[in-house]
């Protein structure tokens, strides 16, 4: 019971307090506005380039909108240092698995809202055609996109303790996702070393699966891709947790909690 309480209370408060927004206007502008205008920008550039149909860019950029949750989670974890709450966190007897992964749970739900908004934006403003889509597959792809983005955010949050700047890491990851997940550039066009990086990113297979579902492809064809991306996301999340625990051990051993 205590563990469940820690999970829910920790996740809710990390969402409300550490993400720096306390009213709806800030939420709308910062949280939802940015991904939507980025979607519009790349859709217009893609339309100008004409290499792919407009729907290619709309669908790709709508799917990667989950990156906003990745940003938020990495900030909520790394901001413990700047808020002065890191020593309390390290000193608390709370279960570390619950504490760490609880940071991402509300954001995962929030990412679903972002993704839904992105699709509404793409459909009603730009005319994204999903009339032949396999909707079960699309919904599953959206769910996997939100979960794997959040897991990647957990890793970035832990890594931000090393590089001291979550915004820098988050932005770097964001643009890597824009370029390398196939949202804007077909993977086949990228050099082989860049393709290798693409497959380690959490959204690459989900974007590919969503393209199949949007064209009316069968659910079974896309499920292996989604399962693989869930695995990639899980690997990033576990890597983040391992890094967090290692840093915590080092900080306790050296007595350098703020230097963590």
């Amino acid at each position, binding site marked *: 019971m205590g563990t469940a309480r820690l999970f829910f209370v920790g996740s809710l408060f990390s969402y409300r307090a550490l993400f720096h927004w306390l009213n709806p*206007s*800030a939420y709308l*502008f*910062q949280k939802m*506005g*940015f991904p939507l*205008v*980025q979607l*519009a*920008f*790349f859709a*217009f*550039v*893609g*339309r*100008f*380039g*004409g*290499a792919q149909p407009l729907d290619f860019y709309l669908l790709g950029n709508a799917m990667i909108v989950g990156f906003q949750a990745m940003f938020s989670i990495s900030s909520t974890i790394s901001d413990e240092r700047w808020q002065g709450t890191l020593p309390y966190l390290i000193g608390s007897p709370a279960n570390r698995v619950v504490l760490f992964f609880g940071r991402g749970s509300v954001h995962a739900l929030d990412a679903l809202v972002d993704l839904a908004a992105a699709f509404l934006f793409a459909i009603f403003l730009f005319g994204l055609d999903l009339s032949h889509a396999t909707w079960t597959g699309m919904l599953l792809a959206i769910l996997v996109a939100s979960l794997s983005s959040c897991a990647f955010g957990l890793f970035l949050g832990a890594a931000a303790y090393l590089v*001291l*700047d979550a*915004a*820098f890491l988050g*932005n*770097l990851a964001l*643009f*890597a996702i*824009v*370029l390398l997940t196939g949202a*804007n*550039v077909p993977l086949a*066009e*990228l050099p082989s070393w860049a393709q290798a990086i693409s497959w380690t990113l959490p959204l690459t297979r989900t974007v590919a699966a969503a393209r199949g579902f949007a064209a009316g492809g069968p659910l079974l064809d896309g499920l292996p891709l989604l399962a693989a991306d869930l695995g990639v996301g899980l690997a990033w999340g576990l890597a983040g947790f391992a890094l967090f625990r290692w840093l915590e051990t080092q900080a306790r051993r050296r007595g350098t909690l703020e230097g963590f």
Partner: protein
Amino acid sequence: MKRWVRPFFATARLWLRFMATDRFMLFCVFFQPFFIAVTVMYMLRHQPSFDPVYVVVGSGLTGIWSVVLFDGTWAVQSERGYGTLELVVGSPASMAAIVAGKLAAGVVFSLTSMAFCYGIGAWLFGYEIAVREPAPFLVALVLAIVSLGAMGVLLAPLAILARAIGRFFTILEHPVYIFGGFLFPILLLPGWLHPVSYALPPYWAAVALHGTSSGDLGGVELLGVCAALIGSSVACILLALPFFRLVERRARVDGSLALT
């Protein structure tokens, strides 16, 4: 005159050093234009009339605008964060000169993004990149950075007078890429949105730089665009001055600057 010139240059020198070590600003100047240039190069290179200098100039502009936007928004807000805002306002030096010094440092620093994007096009993609009209391009570049800097001077007091507006500014990055026509012509936008572009100095900066780099803009047309750049710069400064006076009033008369 001394009240303006000395603080201007002293602030510019100090701010340049600050920016050169600020990870987020380094991201805006180097990493973001890098990813945008590479992504857009892939997206546009299949066009029959593809000109790599268009991507170099447009991506460089994104770097310059991002620095102006965040520098403008944070020029005054950062002083509040450091607890030095009242000291700045209370000093005999003009506050507008201090903010202008910060922004001048920002735009000078951001110019490296243009050179960086040139390197991406020339060395990473192996394109032969040539500016068709070098002398008019240089004139256009100077006027463009002055006009973008002037827009930053306008944003700075607005961001401090209302926190909600300051938050709104942080998502203006991509909308200005869109309305400025940095990487696609604004003809792709609905006609009723074109006046928004015409009202923005970044649009005229993009017209001048794209036009002179491709050799499509010359003579009377170039003079007209230069006049628009100068006019918009003057308009921004004139609009900003009453807001700076209001900031000073809130600090000196009302004593409520830190509370706004």
